[in-house]
């Protein structure tokens, strides 16, 4: 197991290096620069600024410097927010985005799996149809429209939740629900079809022939086997929630990391783009590793390479 994780960490570093390199060069190819604005800067000032941020050096020197700095977990100063470093921005924004993301993932998985199980157990009866109508709505309505609906009905009309901002737990409910709606619907459909497949298996008939009750069969024999595809989906789901949160944070005025990601690209704020990209990449690579490890735990047939036999 330790050997397997070690091996995976090496691959993760390799992927990360490729991401950093690709981002670095694509960013430089894009026209414009951090100091371009409507008012043309005097050439002397621009030269000074370039010298200050090291932009006057040849590309390979910049590239090398940047790699060294990232290795030391230093993303450098922001070009736009004069007094802040990229590390400051991440440290401020990430806890907010993380909390929102976790809430959304929790809602998506809990509600999605529950809906899927109910739908499968009541296959072709009204609970099934209801759950699947909810699922189709969730998949087809984009999160930003869902967000506006929630704001309009639950916040403005009924006043149950605050409309926007990030102050208390109540403030986080609407954005988390908006963010969770699409993945939740997807998980519900996935769980349902996977449950139906498992329920048709011979070993469910075996379980029934042992005299086990329906509840025991569902909990002990069906759900665990049916959740494998859902676990697989958790990797891309994390990615979806993270990227989706840019829009939601914008709509609800949440001071998360997402806003920086979007504005930094418009501003050509090189260090922020790089920093946030690298940070998200690490997050994704870790979540994929966790999914793979969870997979091996849930299904004993999957042996993580390097793990000892019979463990």
């Amino acid at each position, binding site marked *: 197991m330790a050997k397997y994780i070690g091996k995976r960490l090496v691959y993760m570093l390799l992927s990360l290096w490729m991401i950093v390199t690709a981002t670095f060069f694509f960013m430089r190819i894009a026209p414009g620069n951090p100091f371009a604005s409507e008012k043309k800067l005097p050439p002397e000032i621009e030269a000074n600024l370039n010298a200050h941020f090291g932009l006057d050096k040849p590309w390979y020197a910049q590239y090398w410097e940047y790699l060294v700095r990232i290795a030391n977990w230093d993303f450098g100063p922001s070009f736009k927010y004069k007094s802040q470093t990229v590390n400051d921005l991440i440290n401020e924004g990430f806890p907010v985005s993380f909390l929102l993301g976790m809430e959304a993932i929790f809602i998506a998985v809990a509600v999605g799996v529950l809906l899927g199980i109910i739908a499968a157990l009541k296959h072709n009866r009204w609970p099934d149809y209801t759950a699947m109508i909810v699922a189709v709505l969730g998949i087809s309505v984009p999160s930003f429209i869902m967000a506006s609906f929630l704001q309009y009905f639950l916040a403005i009309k009924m006043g149950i939740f605050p409309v926007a901002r990030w102050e208390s737990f109540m403030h986080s409910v609407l954005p988390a629900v908006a963010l969770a709606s699409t993945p939740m619907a997807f998980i519900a459909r996935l769980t349902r079809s996977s449950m139906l497949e498992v329920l048709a*298996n*011979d*070993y469910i*008939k*075996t*379980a*029934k*022939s*042992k*005299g*086990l*009750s*329906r509840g025991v069969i569902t909990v*002990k*024999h069906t759900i*665990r*086997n049916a959740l494998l595809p859902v676990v697989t989906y958790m990797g891309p789901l994390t990615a979806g929630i993270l990227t989706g949160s840019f829009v939601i944070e914008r709509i609800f005025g949440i001071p998360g990391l997402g806003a920086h990601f979007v504005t930094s690209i418009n501003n050509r704020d090189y260090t922020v783009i790089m920093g946030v990209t690298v940070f998200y990449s690490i997050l994704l690579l870790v979540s994929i590793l966790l999914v793979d490890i969870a997979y091996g735990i*849930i*299904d*004993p*047939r999957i042996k993580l390479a390097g793990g000892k036999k019979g463990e």
Partner: protein
Amino acid sequence: MEKLLEVKNLEVSFQTYGGTVKAVRGVSFDLHKGETLAIVGESGSGKSVTSQSIMKLIPMPPGRISGGQILLNGDDIVPKTEKQMEKIRGKEISMIFQDPMTSLNPTMRVGNQIMEVLIKHQNMTKTDGKNRAVELLRLVGIPMPEKRVNQYPHEFSGGMRQRAMIAIALAANPKLLIADEPTTALDVTIQAQILELMKDLQNKMDTSIIFITHDLGVVANVADRVAVMYAGQIVEMGTVDEIFYDPRHPYTWGLLASMPSLENDDKAELAAIPGTPPDLTNPPKGDAFAARNQYALAIDFEEEPPMFQISETHFAKTWLLHPDAPKVEPPEAVKRRMRQLSSTFENPVLVKEGK
């Protein structure tokens, strides 16, 4: 001998888009304590549906027991609820399925799958259950049961999984074991071992067995009595000797003739029953086998044949046993094995009119 199970006029149908399929059409048989009854027939003859109905394991809906009685120790289980059935399944009746590769839960330790039965039906604690599971694995001939009990099904070979299934089925000492083609998915050597094991355990535990198969070689090996099913009905039933040495129904003749034998002329082609079984959505008029039967009489296409009794234990449902029927010769391969049995009545007795 005491009767353990009595099935009376069982009818099972399935509601499908194409109409109602009458999978079992009036099946009656009984089973004594410690006896092995083999049900043979080709795919779709209703043998599996019959056996699963005895445990009420057919999916309802679309399946439905539309008539008849299933008496277990004189108690009819047809009207029982699911909750009541849970006390019967695994405890009174248990089942072994065809494919040991898919009939065990892949993400649960084999030991736990055995313990479930013990905890449910014998109120054992986890520790007792585990010890008993080890004992059961040893009983079914799995080496190193202490280690095996903690393993997952994918770490077992096909034969070992079927042994583990047998351990699960026998865990609560059931009175009736239904084996639904338990050796079909195994290779011949393992097949022989599993059959030996089942016979051995039956002697030890005095269990009755209903053995479903389409392999007549297996039948000769394990069964006391044989029921031949065709198109949802039992067409002939008797002791193993009666079915193998004095078969009376043309369908049984066909089955026996299509069995490869060392005595067969190696130049001649192996016999086969022509055609396919009838569509049970609309069962044909008269005898369901008539269209494929080279011995069919005109009346076979008009009226369902009655059941005739040939000896105390031997029944056949064919017009050929009627006093007015012409004498016919069974196929060569069957005639070779025919023997005069002492228990046979002088003349077949009509016991039940066809519908």
